[in-house]
């Protein structure tokens, strides 16, 4: 290492000037690499230019601040960058602005109170209360240390909710793993077995949520080979706040309070390694980057923050996540047009011998930053003390828009905030790589019972009860619709929370995720995820829906990966706009690649709806024998990416599309029918299609069902029983209606495609008749239930 | 005097040890010829006391009062100076 690039300052602690002025391009890159800041040449040059104008070299702490603030993880360079085609023509100037944020801007809905601005999106609830929602990705840390990674992911997203002054009321989690029977000898070096990752991640999420007393109410688990080396962990949190307590008004003279856990070396460089591909060495090299979780610390912090909020003693709040103090203080000062002056030696440490730059960027968990007026200092510190939380004034906000950090009377950071928050825009190339896919030809069998049992016990559909029961999903006593419902615990489409004691209004939480469609076409994958999240929400009675987007994608520097991302973003705009459902928050995780390939492009859509009266919530379980069963919306021969094709060993190419006019009409009519009390039970059709939906509704209780495929509204050329049973066409619902409501129900569904396709039975027989009237499925519902329940029990 | 006390709290015989059983099962799954696994908790306590016997008395009390539940736990300890 050429010594001349780094000059150690003669001070009693570690502080280094980095010789940037006059450094050549290759030296700039060398510095970036050696400091582990993952800045590219253009960015390094921009910093070099900035410091030449200042006429001095930056310190290590300053360069680390750039490394954090300009990272993909913090700044979302790709989503905010310019996208060009391979021949250099501009395609889109800013994917985030022109696809995601544009939906919200154009819909311009009065109930969207704060979108994309803060740690979480905020929408109106009722009576002066608002809902805050956020979903995070925590893929890279979870791949390396599943328990710690998933736990801190949960802790982080809960702090995002606290970071907008909201009280967390529910958590969600959506996880993607490699198959649990993946052969050990095929595992790439440095990759942990899916079983190990599964156990660790699930335990980590449960550990954090359970300890904090926040119910984990909704989620999904998906298995696919592409996740073997690229585990996907989405952690979400929903909170409630009185709107008039939301404050973001930091002013010069305000004190910066750091509260919560102590600062240590944990998480140092967590940000920068998350923005680079995982390699076989990641396991060793990245270990110290994974943070250690202490949920009880955060529970206490939460109590103190809510008290400070309710007494209106603070002027702003934000969480410490990626980039630690450097990002939190910088952002809080920047967004309020202030500067900040921090004394790093005031920061309470876990252990001595931490360099100033490490204190500055450490990602130790369970810390929050508050700005408060001087006059409230004693009151605020007293509240923290009562709650057994350590809180320290670490500096103050200034009027000069400069970020100044001292350590033992030596200045270690002195940065112009405007420059710090204006990184050079990135330019990336996208191309569409057409896929060579074919539709399989599968021999049609007469008896489809075996196929149904096969699908219902396949890992993606089988009951996740063993996971659901390891999460406390009813702490707080407000969970109206739980993940498992009915006498035998069938799978509800969405969770309903009743957050206010004084009101019957509920928050409806659902999600949509269709990774296997992403293998065929990211556009329809995104459209399907949106449709699924919305129909899950609507099917329990949700409406006035807002969306959160979470992308897990490969390396955006590879044009085909970016080409797919671009298509998914376009679909986000097209369909969210058409459904009238604004995006309120989102997060992307890119670089999900390993030596064995990329994670399947995976978009998680989380939908947050409301229901005016939770007592009108519709659940999945069949209510009575002798009721009519309606299928709403058209079934198409869309089996590409379906569980049926997967069972037969194929992917196919006829990916389900979304037909907007039909979808919108269906949703509006169904909501009306639910409000009129005409719907006894309802379940959307998703993975596994009609047959799986009917099975889940039936085996949640003890009764049977008889269905006729002949009556299913379908496209003209659909003749095959297996395709009708297992097609995964979007926007469809199966609905139980009492005979006496037949007319009213049909009246309310006027203009939609619908048909009665069968009825519920007292006998526990599950029977499906084919288009020719012959019986194609004949099985007892308890046999279906056992297959569904037992498949994952022993395996994971 | 400073003493370094190593306290081990383990389950009394006859009580189920679900943690140990789970670990054993998992180790067997990984192909190790494991017959049984027992879990115990180890606390390292740095204690200041006037004498070795005083340190022993305090340690015994700490174990009974907090670290072990006599219904199900055995405890043992050894004390070193320093």
């Amino acid at each position: 290492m050429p010594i001349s690039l780094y000059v150690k300052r003669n001070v009693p602690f570690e502080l280094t000037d980095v010789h940037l002025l006059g450094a050549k391009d290759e030296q700039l890159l060398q510095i970036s690499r050696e400091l582990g800041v993952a800045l590219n040449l253009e960015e390094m040059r921009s910093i070099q230019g900035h410091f030449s104008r200042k006429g001095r070299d930056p310190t290590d702490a300053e360069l680390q601040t750039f490394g954090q603030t300009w990272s993909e993880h913090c700044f979302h360079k790709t989503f905010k960058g310019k996208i060009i085609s391979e021949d250099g023509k501009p395609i889109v100037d800013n994917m985030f602005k022109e696809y995601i944020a544009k939906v919200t801007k154009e819909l311009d809905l009065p109930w969207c109170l704060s979108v994309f601005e803060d740690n979480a999106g905020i929408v109106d609830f009722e009576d002066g209360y608002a809902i805050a929602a956020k979903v995070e990705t925590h893929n890279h840390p979870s791949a390396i240390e599943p328990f710690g990674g998933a736990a801190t992911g949960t802790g982080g997203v809960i702090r995002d909710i606290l970071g907008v002054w909201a009280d967390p009321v529910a958590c969600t989690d959506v996880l993607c793993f490699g198959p649990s029977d993946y052969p050990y000898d095929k595992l790439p070096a440095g990759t942990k077995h899916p079983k190990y990752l599964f156990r660790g991640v699930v335990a980590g999420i449960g550990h954090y949520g359970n300890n904090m007393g926040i119910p984990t109410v909704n989620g999904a688990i998906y298995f696919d080979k592409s996740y073997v080396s690229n585990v996907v962990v989405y952690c979400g949190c929903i909170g409630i706040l009185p709107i008039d307590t939301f404050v973001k008004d930091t002013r010069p003279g305000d004190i910066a309070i750091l509260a919560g856990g102590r600062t240590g070396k944990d998480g140092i460089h967590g940000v920068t390694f998350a923005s680079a591909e995982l390699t076989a060495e990641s396991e060793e090299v990245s270990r110290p980057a994974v943070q250690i979780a202490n949920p009880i610390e955060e529970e206490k912090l939460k109590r103190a923050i809510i008290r400070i909020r309710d007494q209106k003693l603070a002027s702003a709040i934000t969480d410490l996540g990626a980039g630690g103090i450097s990002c939190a203080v910088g952002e809080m000062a920047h967004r309020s047009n202030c500067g900040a002056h921090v004394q790093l030696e005031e920061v309470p440490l876990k252990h001595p011998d931490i360099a100033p730059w490490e204190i500055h960027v450490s990602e130790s968990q369970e810390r929050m930053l508050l700005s408060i007026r001087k006059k409230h200092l004693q009151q605020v510190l007293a509240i923290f003390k009562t709650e057994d939380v350590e809180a320290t004034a670490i500096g103050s906000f200034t009027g000069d828009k400069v970020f100044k950090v001292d350590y033992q009377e030596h200045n270690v950071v002195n940065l112009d905030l405007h420059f710090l928050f204006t990184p050079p825009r990135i330019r990336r190339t996208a191309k569409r790589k057409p896929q060579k896919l074919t539709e399989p030809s599968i021999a049609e069998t007469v008896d489809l019972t075996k196929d149904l049992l096969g699908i219902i016990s396949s890992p993606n559909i089988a009951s996740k009860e063993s996971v659901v029961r390891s999460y406390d999903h009813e702490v707080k006593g407000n969970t109206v619709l739980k993940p498992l419902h009915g006498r035998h615990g069938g799978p509800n489409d969405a969770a309903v929370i009743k957050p206010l004691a004084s009101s019957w209004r509920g928050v409806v939480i659902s999600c949509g995720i269709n990774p296997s469609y992403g293998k065929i076409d990211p556009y329809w994958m995104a459209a399907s995820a949106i449709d699924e999240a919305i129909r899950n929400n609507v099917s329990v009675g949700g409406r006035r829906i807002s969306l959160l987007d979470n992308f897990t994608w490969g390396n955006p520097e590879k044009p085909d990966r970016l080409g797919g991302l671009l298509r998914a973003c376009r679909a986000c705009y097209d369909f969210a706009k058409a459904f009238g459902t604004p995006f309120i928050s989102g997060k992307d995780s890119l670089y999900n690649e390993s030596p064995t390939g990329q994670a399947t492009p995976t978009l998680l859509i989380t939908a947050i709806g409301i229901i005016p009266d939770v007592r009108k919530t519709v659940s999945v379980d069949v209510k009575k024998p002798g009721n009519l069963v309606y299928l709403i919306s058209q079934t198409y021969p869309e089996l590409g990416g379906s569980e049926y094709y997967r069972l037969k060993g194929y992917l196919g190419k006829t990916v389900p599309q979304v037909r907007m006019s039909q979808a919108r009409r269906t949703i509006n009519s169904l909501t009306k029918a639910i409000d009129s009390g005409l719907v006894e039970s309802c379940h959307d059709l998703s993975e596994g299609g009609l047959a799986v939906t009917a099975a889940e509704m039936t085996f949640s209780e003890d009764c049977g069902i008889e269905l006729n495929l002949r009556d299913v509204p379908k496209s003209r050329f659909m003749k095959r029983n297996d395709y009708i049973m297992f097609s995964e066409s979007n926007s469809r619902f199966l609905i139980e209606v009492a005979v006496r409501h037949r007319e009213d129900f049909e009246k309310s569904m006027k203009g939609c495609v619908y048909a009665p396709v069968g009825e519920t039975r007292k006998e526990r027989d599950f029977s499906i008749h084919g288009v020719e009237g012959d019986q194609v499925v004949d099985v007892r519902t308890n046999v279906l239930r056992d297959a569904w329940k037992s498949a994952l029990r022993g395996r994971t | 005097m400073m003493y370094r006390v190593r306290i081990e709290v383990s389950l009394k015989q006859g009580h189920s040890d679900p943690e140990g059983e789970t670990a054993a099962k998992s180790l067997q799954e990984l192909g190790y010829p494991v017959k049984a696994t027992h879990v115990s908790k180890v606390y390292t306590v740095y204690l200041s006391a006037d004498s070795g016997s005083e340190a022993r008395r305090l340690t015994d009390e700490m174990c009974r009062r907090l670290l072990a539940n006599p219904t199900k736990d055995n405890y043992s300890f050894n004390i070193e100076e320093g």
Partner: protein
Amino acid sequence: MQEDVRICILRVGGTNCDAETKRAFDDAGAKAEIVHLNEAVEKGNLSDYNAIVIPGGFSYGDHVRAGAIWAKEVMAKLGSELLKLAEEGRPVLGICNGFQVLVEAGLLPGFKGVSKYPEAALATNVPIGYYCGWVHVRHVNSGRCIFTQKIPKGKMLRMPVAHAEGRFIFSKENEEALLEQLRDNDQLVFVFCSENGGPAGGKYPANPNGSFYDIAGLCNAEGTIFGLMPHPERAYYRWQQPDWTQTDAASPYGDGRLVFESMVEYLKAK
């Protein structure tokens, strides 16, 4: 007749079922207050309250053993107050983590008053792991327990459990004798049972934690201190039940309400 029944719901770091417990008491006609242990210690006495409740949660992260740290802390800082209260026959209720605290503090089973060291334990679940789900319990108390006075003996109730350390055990060497003592003193309150009312027989999931003799809740010999693993506050309203959409909308409550009603009624009559 007591006009106002004042209930103190204690909490420390990691307590997390205080709000719903307060809601249940308030609905049942009491005035419940949530008080941080630090605030109670600062105040120095609990004499304003007719009853003390230790709610569910993960006090101190379940470190050492669930409930152990809080138990020692509460006894060290408020022990004399609590003992005074208990001597006066003012009720003390522990739910889930609160039950663990009462056992670790030596207040339960309390064969001969308060014991210095725990006489029982709430050990790691068998099968191992955190379990959140609804269970059936049978009320087996003959009238000693003031917290279940409104519940007929033999009645089956449905409530959820959510814990990782709920397996009630005695020392192996004298468990039968101690069980006999519990029976003789009418200290058994709830035992886990199967859906059709039969004994759970220690079998999962009817007995979700493997507890001895299917014990889910018990009281002291005076019937004024009661601890249970299930969460009655999560079974207070109809809409909290896992199949409420199948039930009759005319009855707005769940089985858990009976515990709160019994306690408030007892206090009001006092």
